[in-house]
């Protein structure tokens, strides 16, 4: 029985129990419409967490995702102000390309200059925010400056769920296929699981990490447009500190911070858990400080769980024990 599979079951159970508990106090929470709203509200976190998961799997970390989101979102908003008639499809392409480019900067620094990822992304996180300030001189772009098609896209409903939610679903499916069924996905797990062994099998560790940062950046850029359009506002500090929620979602979802272990499903459940806590607790009159405490406790419990399941087994000396494992 794999520890990860059972981890996902436990997390699913925890989310279910939480929702059920809230439903006893506030039945309206479990109305289908509300559950869809919670899911949609959590989608940005889920998308970013899936990108972050890939990075963490390769033994790196990307602290610049929220800053990338804010910068790409701001650029999309400025383009919209300058050219209101540009179709949303073009904006989406711009967001994906720009996000990838920002991710590639992180990746290149890690790959070619061997700078520790935490340092690189701490630096680019600050730089990206600084660039937004340079572009805007600190001014906001508000709803009335953006075109209705630009802001309307993520909120448009399709089969009872906003497009934002559907984008989350599509990305989740794509990521599951990438991680489980492509050579890139396999390389990511190999690099994180044992970089030395990966080198000998012909996998370029640095290049794989670079690709992970590009994926993370691409998803952050896409989320940038979606975020700005959904909230109809762009300024320097949007999604400030959100990178920590993203890392937390991964950790709660069972992604090993030491790399090599973690799944898309786990990550999605980790993000959903945080989303439910954030959306549900205010409804039942729990103070926001308790929300923080619950999120924090969840992280520590998750890490303790990871440490336990990740502990290496001792050498088997007894012959009789060899097949009993």
């Amino acid at each position, binding site marked *: 029985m*794999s520890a990860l599979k059972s981890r996902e079951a436990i997390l699913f159970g925890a989310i279910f129990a939480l929702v059920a508990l809230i439903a006893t106090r506030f039945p309206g929470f479990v109305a289908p419409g509300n559950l869809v709203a919670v899911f949609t509200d959590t989608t940005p976190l889920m998308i970013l967490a899936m990108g972050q998961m890939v990075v963490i799997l390769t033994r790196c970390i990307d602290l610049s995702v929220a800053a990338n989101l804010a910068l790409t979102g701001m650029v999309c908003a400025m383009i919209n102000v300058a050219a209101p008639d540009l179709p949303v499809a073009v904006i989406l392409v711009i967001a994906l390309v720009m996000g990838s480019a920002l991710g590639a900067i992180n990746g290149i620094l890690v790959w070619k200059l061997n700078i520790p990822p935490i340092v690189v992304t701490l630096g680019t996180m600050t730089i990206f925010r600084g660039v937004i300030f340079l572009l805007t001189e600190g001014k906001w772009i508000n709803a009335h400056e953006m075109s209705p098609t630009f802001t309307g896209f993520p909120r448009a409903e399709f089969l009872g769920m906003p497009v934002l939610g559907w984008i989350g679903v599509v990305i989740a499916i794509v990521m599951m296929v990438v991680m489980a*069924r*492509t*050579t*890139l996905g*396999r*390389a990511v*797990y*190999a690099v994180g*699981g*044992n970089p*030395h*062994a*990966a*080198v*000998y*099998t*012909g*996998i*370029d560790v640095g290049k794989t990490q670079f690709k992970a940062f590009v994926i993370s950046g691409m998803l952050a850029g896409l989320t940038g447009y979606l975020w700005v359009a959904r909230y109809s506002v762009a300024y320097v500090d949007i999604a400030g500190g959100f990178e920590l929620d993203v890392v937390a979602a991964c950790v709660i979802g069972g992604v090993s911070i030491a790399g*090599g*272990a973690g799944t898309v499903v786990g990550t999605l459940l980790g993000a959903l858990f945080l989303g439910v806590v954030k959306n549900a607790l205010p409804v039942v009159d729990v103070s926001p400080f308790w929300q923080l405490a619950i999120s924090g406790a969840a992280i520590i419990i998750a890490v303790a769980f990871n440490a336990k399941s990740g502990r*290496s*087994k001792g*050498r*088997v*000396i007894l012959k009789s024990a*060899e*097949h009993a*494992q």
Partner: protein
Amino acid sequence: MQDLTQKPDVKTQGGAVLKLDGITKSFPGVKALDGVELELHAGEVTALIGENGAGKSTVVKTLTGIYQPDGGSILLNGAPVRFATPQDAADAGVTAIHQETVLFDELSVAENVFIGHAPKNKFGLIDKKAMFDRTTEILNSIGAKIDAHVKLKDLGIASRHLVAISRALSVEAQVVIMDEPTAALSQTEIEELYELVDTLKAQGKAILFISHKFDEIFRIADRYTVFRDGQYVGAGLMKDVKEADLVQMMVGRAVEQLFPKREAEIGEEVLTVAGYSHPTEFEDINFTLRKGEILGFYGLVGAGRSEFMQSLIGITRPSKGAVNINGDVRVIRSPAEAIDAGIVYVPEDRGKQGAILDMPIFQNVTLPSLKKTSRDGFIQLANEFALAREYTERLDLRAASLDTNVGALSGGNQQKVVIAKWLATKPRVIILDEPTKGIDIGSKAAVHDFMSELASEGLSVIMVSSEIPEILGMSDRVIVMREGRMVAELEGDDMKPETLVRHAVGINSTGDAA
């Protein structure tokens, strides 16, 4: 604390300051020391000589309290002692300069010298002045011109070595152990070290000197002791012995034939390596390898064999040289290109560099073959399972399911996964680095048998090994490396233990030091 201040009486009758008597030490599956003897005398240098794995390092660790012997006794000035911890050994005046000295870059020279036993003042805090003064004193006594306040990271290799020696001397030492002290030094630094050894001798210290290099043993030692396979072979005065005698003692009797070497048909040339060189690790390696042949690479640890192999598969780049595989001249710049060319390398440290423990068996096996099991970057699960099943069955790997994570398998089965992984790439040349290191006799025979089978199926095998019986028993031909160069290529009747050791330690055929 009183007994520590008691000055050791170096002129005990019998002459030996330190004596090992019948020391035995076993590790699971291997007897590292089997009743060995060793005597160290005040004011004299004793050289400890033996092949790789003869038990030299184990003796050092026993003497310095890192290992506890299973049997036998250690006598210090005639009285039995027990070193339960390295601190006990240091308190008794036995100190060692290890092969890889652990020093701290960000600390000053004095802090490095006195780490763990810094002088304290009356408040129990470190007495900095005393520490720096004592360090300067020790540095002066060995003639080192180093400022005790400088941070270690600002010193060169040679100065670091002197700091390591100072650290060994910072305890009231009567026995100084030097484990391959010249390995990292240049010629002038080696001369300075010899002078230092003379100084220590004059101070009446008993010195144990471990080295592979015969020229320096003859230059510096007064006595010798030879170990072979964890056993004491003999001891005596250097002036009474010739190099040829020492080599004879090191390698012992003729090698018993317990290797299941099958005669394989040796075919056409598969791999030719010409003029392979690296700026710092090896130079001018030339050889050809034929189909079905097992080519042995012998040498002492650090002769550059693994470094050369890693370059051959593209982990490091050669500065010069070319590889011709099956008639194609290739430049191999990465392990992926080596795999494409049909050359695979099974590293020595299979635990660390071999398997990915968090991955299922089938994914580990197909990892280097993903190009073959995938189409346009998408993995074809059916192909993947078929390949994994074929090779795990071939190696008789028993596991409940190919979905099992490798981390849940026993050590022996993990090794099989690693080998299956490389065979699944269908290589033409397989390089096995120390294929039987650290495994028990029974498994060794299985590995040798398997190696023979591979060769008889037409695979060319390069085997890097430091074990003479294995090299002689399995190889069709042997290349000996020393200090990054190929010093001999031996075939047929020339493949004798004495010849191998002579070339590896650097003695030419007339018996004089090279």
